[in-house]
């Protein structure tokens, strides 16, 4: 739990203040939290457990949270860490490509040569939401995560940097690669489905 408490100025909230913060600053994000958890685990029960676990930790360490600051980013960070430390191991999702392998491949100098971005708006317009979600879900979790945080949850690079514990430059490059990977998946999918591209 040290990641929750690190760099935090410790508060000393009364029980009433804790309840108030929890209700007014934390609980309003429960839907976003569940959607994020589901997109990580692909399982309703795991997502529910992950969100509950996150809120339990948030309440337990509420004195590490400064009232009025970015509660959503704070909660997302706890959820992401819980997923990595506990849920990823027992998750029901199929085995994924090893992230380090993927990242080292995409960081290599020739990676750009294999990235296909020849995808047209008209092609995507033919697709429905769950087809695109399927392509997103097929990405390795660390690449999927940056797209979710940026494009679905609207976090800034700085917020993402704090949530994911990575430098802001890595957020920029990983996001770019993730979007290219998503487009590649969509191009393949469009070809499979016979959409004109």
């Amino acid at each position, binding site marked *: 739990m040290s990641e929750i408490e690190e760099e935090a100025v410790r508060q000393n909230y009364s029980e009433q203040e804790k309840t108030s913060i929890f209700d007014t600053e934390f609980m309003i994000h429960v839907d976003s939290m569940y959607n994020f958890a589901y997109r990580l685990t692909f399982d309703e029960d795991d997502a529910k457990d992950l969100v509950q676990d996150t809120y*339990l930790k948030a309440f337990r360490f509420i004195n590490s949270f400064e009232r009025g600051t970015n509660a959503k980013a704070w909660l997302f960070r706890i959820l992401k860490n819980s997923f990595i430390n506990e849920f990823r191991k027992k998750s029901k999702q199929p085995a994924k490509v090893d992230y380090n392998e993927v990242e080292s491949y995409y960081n290599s100098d020739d990676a750009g040569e294999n990235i296909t971005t020849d995808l047209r708006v008209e092609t995507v317009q033919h697709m429905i939401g769950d087809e695109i979600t399927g392509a997103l879900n097929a990405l390795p979790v660390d690449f999927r995560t940056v797209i979710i945080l940026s494009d679905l949850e609207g976090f800034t690079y700085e917020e993402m940097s704090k949530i994911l514990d990575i430098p802001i430059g890595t957020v920029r490059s990983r996001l770019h690669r993730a979007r290219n990977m998503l487009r590649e998946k969509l191009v393949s999918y469009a070809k499979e489905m016979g959409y004109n591209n």
Partner: protein
Amino acid sequence: MSEFSMWFEQTFKQCYCEKGNLVDQERFSELVQLVLDDEADEESRALFEEKIRTCVQSNGKFLEEKGLRECIQTKLTQFKQDIPGDLAQSIKNSINL
């Protein structure tokens, strides 16, 4: 000056040949990303906007990237998992609130 000012300036230079033609679309799309994500500072944005005003190829690429991004984003946003009706209450119950 933002985190990416220097990076933006250097990458921008690498995108164009001496005649000012767009020669590296992949790098250019990285600049577009920063602009669309609202992470480019004012100076970088001004440099970018001036270029897309005067370069047909850059403007075309920018509009293509923007359209694609918006389309994917809209469709992803539309697809959301149903939230379990008892989730909020079970969270509160679990911490005795």
